[in-house]
């Protein structure tokens, strides 16, 4: 575990010393503050639109940070040749993969804390309430879901040589799953065999990321908390997919020549 934490520590340092996070965070603040300062159509419920926009920006920013940070980890180590002195030490390849994953995941967790605090402050400035448990549920499932995205991107970084192609592919896959993944079963019903079975198989094989994504609606429309057992079940479901992608990444990396 010591080795995994050591690798994770370097990833976290990298994130807070690079400008990516600050740029996206400031951009989100600027857009939201400008929107908040404008009185559109004298609508008293305008805060809902503002909250929806802010959460959408948080989702986009968190995905961009998670995917781009993870996608460059292993390729940068290979390109800069830092992978060589690292693996020449008593560090296994699996430990390196888990360390990179943990680092990216924890770093994204810190990013989410900053974003959700800003979101809470923005919402409280208009609504004068702090539904902390609702925010916690949304942020927690958001973070767990980012674990799946990070593990998938890490696996992609071992398959695709260029971080840019890996980032693009992962971004398309993740947004497709979030936006249309839930409708695949309905699509399958309208198809003849064997396409029906193929689409059904796809529906059951992909990780369904829509529940954390739809948590936005709970806090936008001030709906009550969802059951904690449901939150735990969804977290376990997402963690299982994370584990599958991480094991696959370890197996791919084990066979890969590092020179």
């Amino acid at each position, binding site marked *: 575990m*010591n*080795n995994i*934490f*050591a690798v994770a*520590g*370097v990833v976290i*340092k*990298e994130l807070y*010393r*690079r400008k990516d996070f600050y740029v996206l965070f400031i951009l989100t603040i600027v857009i939201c503050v400008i929107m908040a300062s404008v009185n559109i159509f004298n609508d008293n419920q305008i805060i809902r639109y503002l909250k929806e926009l802010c959460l959408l920006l948080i989702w986009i920013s968190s995905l961009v940070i998670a995917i781009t940070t993870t996608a460059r980890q292993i390729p940068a180590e290979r390109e*800069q*040749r*830092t992978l*060589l*002195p*690292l*693996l*020449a*030490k*008593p*560090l*296994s390849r699996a430990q390196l993969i888990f360390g990179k994953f943990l680092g990216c995941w924890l770093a994204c967790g810190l990013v989410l804390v900053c974003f959700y605090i800003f979101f809470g402050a923005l919402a409280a400035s208009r609504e004068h309430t702090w539904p902390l448990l609702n925010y916690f549920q949304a942020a927690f499932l958001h973070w767990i879901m980012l674990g799946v995205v990070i593990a998938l991107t890490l696996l992609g970084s071992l398959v695709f040589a260029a971080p840019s192609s890996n980032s693009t592919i992962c971004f398309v896959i993740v947004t497709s799953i979030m936006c249309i993944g839930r409708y695949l079963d309905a699509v399958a019903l309208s198809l003849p065999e064997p396409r029906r079975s193929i689409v059904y198989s796809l529906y059951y094989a992909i990780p369904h990321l829509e529940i954390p994504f739809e948590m936005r609606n709970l806090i936008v429309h001030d709906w009550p908390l969802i059951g904690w057992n449901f939150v735990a079940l969804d977290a376990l479901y997402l963690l299982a997919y994370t584990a599958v992608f991480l094991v696959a990444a370890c197996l791919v990396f084990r066979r890969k*020549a*590092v*020179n």
Partner: protein
Amino acid sequence: MNVILKTEKLRVEFKNREFRQSPKIALRRLDLEVNAGEVFGFLGPNGAGKTTTINVLLGFVQPTGGSASLFGIDVRQPIARQRIGYLPELTYYYKFLTAEELLRFYSRIFSLPRAEAERRIDAVLKLVELESSRKRLIKTYSKGMQQRVGLAQALINNPDLLILDEPTSGLDPLGRMKVREIIQRLKNEGKTVFFSSHELGEVETVCDRVAIIAEGELKAIGRVGEIVGQRASLEKAFLEIVGYQTQTAP
């Protein structure tokens, strides 16, 4: 003599990516033995198999045949690397870390206790003369300073065996001299150093024994004096052994 590094009938083949082409043989039946406390130079022209040998020793490449061991442990086991230090050729360390942070990171991987790690960091930074720049980000370092950081990371665990892959490659004469002095100092401390190099003058100065390989085959091994023999210099001996024919103008 206590043998620290050993390869027996080591063979490495790489698959040819072109369809129906025979595999490329990088090493053929390489037998090497490096004893404790000696500085061993590993010479050969580009593409001879020096880096492949080092990659096998570090577990980066799986041998197709034969065996390799460090301290009597098969190189495929990570524990074989507990007592070694490795400096690769031309590495650019994490730009967003300082030298001190980089060394702290590597010392954690060796599970050094905190006090011991701080003591080692001070000692190696002093050895490579980077004490005054220890809190500066590595991205602000010159090439020579980066190479010395590399040497510092290779020494952080106080290794018994140091493997250096062309340690002076790309350095100016002053940088080369500093690296050479450090190798000399390590030799005086009784460390075993295994290094590949193209700088034959440097090899002649610091090495106890050398091995010359060409096209994946061991061509000569022995003390520098034995290899040079009746020839004028190690360079002449090297060229003759690797089969280079000097061209004379008509």
